[in-house]
């Protein structure tokens, strides 16, 4: 085949080019956006990523399956539980191990707690992006409570490494159920403050409603999943589509909006916190008895083949694609990370808005940079 690669033109001379990031307060990490401006209007955005690319996919090729788990913690560090779970599910699918209910239920509760704390951090940092610093402290204050629950059971706050192929690293702590119930009670009581301070605020609504609208067609075409996609009406919740763990036995609503603007992307996350609390409510009192770990062979070797596991993380669809050649190391591991895909739409939806809107839009897509860079 002949080679046709288009020549690339970087910006135009008369445009005002500003670097946002890597050292910028609201790119949430080391994302660099090269923004072409006309006055205050954003004309083009070019994301430059890779500042913290660690080559996790390459590293996975030289380590064993249980060892991969600790790397997934470090991709989307706010969805560490779900990332761990994704790899475990893929490996368990390959080994065709039957997982006891207890493990499934604990994994589900942990995932939902993880989702809540991720959205809390989203709320906190989004408030800060919009200029309301107080949100940041309220969000983190509530998030600490979940992190304490995590720490008590797993020994880690963000980097949990909790699921492992065949089950869980530790059994839940005896206080776990009580603490979770306390937290749910507490959080139901303070969630109205989130609305009072940010969601209902007239300044915030004016700044976000109708800004950065993403249509359903574009959302599907750009593959925007998670709350960002669902705000555009894209029913992409894998917990509904392909229920894994204990999601098939709980009732919850998929939060769907049709507007697809920044405000609804924000709102989808707030509502998801409520849904997550409902899921936990249904499960927390009926954790079945049983082992927390299925005895596995000391060296896990996946049979030759391809294994594809989709998991709904706090930011969207995480796919783990393992190609095994029968060795103890995988031949190829691909993580389809939601943030990486979501970043692709940024230029499309923030064109012709102002700089302040760009911050609002980028914030509402809720990037976690290590997940983009992997």
């Amino acid at each position: 085949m002949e080679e046709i690669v288009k020549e690339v033109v970087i910006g135009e001379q008369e445009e005002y080019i500003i670097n946002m990031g890597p050292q910028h307060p609201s790119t949430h990490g080391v994302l660099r956006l090269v923004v072409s401006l006309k006055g205050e209007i954003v004309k083009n955005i070019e994301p430059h990523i890779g500042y913290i690319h660690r080559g996790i996919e390459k590293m996975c090729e030289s380590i064993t399956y249980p060892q991969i788990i600790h790397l997934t913690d470090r991709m989307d560090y706010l969805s560490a539980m779900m990332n761990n779970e994704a790899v475990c599910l893929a490996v368990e699918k390959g080994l065709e191990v039957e997982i006891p209910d207890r493990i499934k239920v604990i994994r589900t509760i942990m995932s939902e707690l993880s989702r809540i704390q991720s959205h809390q951090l989203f709320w906190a940092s989004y408030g800060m992006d919009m200029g309301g610093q107080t949100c940041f402290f309220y969000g983190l204050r509530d998030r600490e409570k979940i992190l304490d629950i995590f720490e008590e059971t797993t020994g880690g706050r963000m980097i949990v490494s909790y699921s492992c192929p065949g089950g869980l690293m530790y059994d839940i702590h005896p206080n776990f159920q009580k603490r979770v119930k306390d937290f749910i009670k507490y959080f139901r009581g303070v969630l109205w403050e989130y609305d009072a301070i940010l969601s209902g605020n007239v300044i915030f609504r004016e700044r976000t409603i109708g800004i950065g609208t993403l249509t359903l067609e574009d959302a599907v075409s750009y593959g925007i999943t998670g709350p960002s996609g669902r705000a555009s009406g894209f029913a992409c919740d894998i917990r509904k589509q392909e229920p894994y763990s204990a999601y098939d036995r709980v009732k919850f609503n998929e939060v769907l909006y049709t507007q697809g603007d920044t405000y609804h992307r924000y709102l989808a996350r707030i509502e998801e916190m409520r849904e997550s609390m409902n899921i936990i409510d249904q499960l927390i009192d009926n954790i079945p008895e049983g082992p927390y770990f299925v005895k596995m062979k000391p060296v896990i070797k996946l049979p030759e083949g391809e294994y594809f596991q989709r998991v709904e993380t706090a930011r969207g669809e995480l796919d783990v694609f393992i190609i095994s050649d029968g060795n103890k190391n995988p031949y190829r591991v691909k993580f389809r990370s939601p943030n990486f895909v979501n970043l692709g739409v940024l230029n499309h939806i923030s064109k012709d808005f102002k700089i302040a809107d760009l911050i609002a839009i980028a914030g509402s897509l809720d990037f976690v940079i290590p997940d983009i860079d992997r």
Partner: protein
Amino acid sequence: MNSIIQYFKEIIQGVGSLLKGMQVTNRYFFSPGKIVTQKYPENRKDLKMFERFKGEVVMPHNEKNEHKCTGCGICEINCPNGTIEVISKSIVTEDGKKKRVIDKHIYRLGMCTFCALCVKTCPSNALAFSQEFEHAVFNRALLIKTLNKPGSQLMKGVE
């Protein structure tokens, strides 16, 4: 006319939403009991980490300076990034048999990712996590630790 009503409605709703937010922050200002932050070094005494907290990997020794590490090297194999290095030596036991025991169990705290695989896979439960979290040192070389204490021996009955 409608648009004028709308105009004033907007103002009232807007001001209302602002007042609602101010009510929340004002309430917190006047309730210092809700302060959640702590003075860290001062509260060291009553600061207690959770028992499963992964501070650093240690090798518990009993009062007779004995540990349980047989030097099998499973932790070294399971460590994803070469944090652990087990150096063993062979000694001649009292009954004349040759036996491999650990010389040094080297643990590089600076590289450790706290995945707990070493602790979980150790067949003789020789490793554990401590609650220590103040790891800051001025010299990076101090983060390379030897876990077995000098002169320590294998606990009786552990194979």
